[in-house]
């Protein structure tokens, strides 16, 4: 694997990072118009993340977005779930039935995000006012009371055995 490939080896995976780790990613301005900021951890470029924790805040702007906070015990990750698919010009180019399905899924996720539930959230790593956040693509509410504990163990294991590995 050459240096370029090595830097991008985690790029298309949802990295499972603890909040304190996710919030300390290095942010660098990039030349791409779709992703104006690139995120990296120990030299590896990242674009997607998964987090699991308790929902501790929720701010809904109907038909626009739901902003919420996931607290995993090591930090709070801000999340934004867009709910503007039917009005957004970005989605106008796509098939109306696909857009409707995406919009329905987003509304379902928004209804599941309630204060105090434990949610597993996946999405793109983005930045808002200089702070790392997740632009949500899917949400699963965890029923197993051990889900967070198992997520911590998985994050620690992956960091040590996979994400931190230099491989070069």
């Amino acid at each position, binding site marked *: 694997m050459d240096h370029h490939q090595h830097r991008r080896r985690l790029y298309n995976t949802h990295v499972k990072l*603890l*909040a*304190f*780790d996710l919030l*300390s990613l290095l942010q660098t301005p990039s030349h791409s118009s779709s992703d104006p900021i690139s995120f990296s951890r120990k030299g590896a470029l990242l674009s997607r993340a998964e987090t699991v924790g*308790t*929902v*501790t*805040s929720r*701010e809904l702007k109907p038909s626009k977005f739901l*902003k*919420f*906070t996931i*607290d*995993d*015990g*090591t*930090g*709070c990750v*801000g999340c934004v779930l867009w709910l503007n698919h039917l009005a957004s010009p970005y989605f106008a180019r796509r098939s109306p039935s696909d857009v409707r399905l995406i919009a329905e899924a987003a509304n379902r996720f928004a209804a599941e995000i*309630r*204060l*105090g*539930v*434990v949610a597993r959230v996946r999405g793109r790593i983005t930045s*808002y*006012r200089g*702070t790392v*956040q997740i632009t949500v693509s899917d949400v699963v509410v965890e029923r*197993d*009371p*051990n889900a967070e*504990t198992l997520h*911590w*163990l998985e994050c*620690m294991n992956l*960091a040590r055995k996979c994400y931190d590995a230099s491989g070069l």
Partner: protein
Amino acid sequence: MASSAIKSGTLVSLQDIYLSSPFFKQGASLRVTGKLQEYSVETAVAIVVDGNANLKINTQHLRDLSFRVGSFYQFIGELLIQHDNEAILQARVGRNVDGIDLNLYHQSLQLLRKFQADHLSTT
């Protein structure tokens, strides 16, 4: 963004909350887990226990949570230390965690603290 003002509840065991502990601070944001020993509908004050440690929880801001003595609960909130040095957690969120493996939880918590300390010392 409103969420940036929300503080993370530091993960603690009930045994970690005592007078000279670093977690025993006015306004400290904590996450605690324990078995419900008592609950008063009048005051909305709950008492949770873990081994020989216990803590009072003010649950007046919580909705949609039913309290059953003997069940396990987890709360995130701020510690209020009263004049007599008695602590009470002002809960922001709470949930029932019946079925939690507390042994695994406490062991994982120790690993997590070490992992975090190691990570912060290398960055």
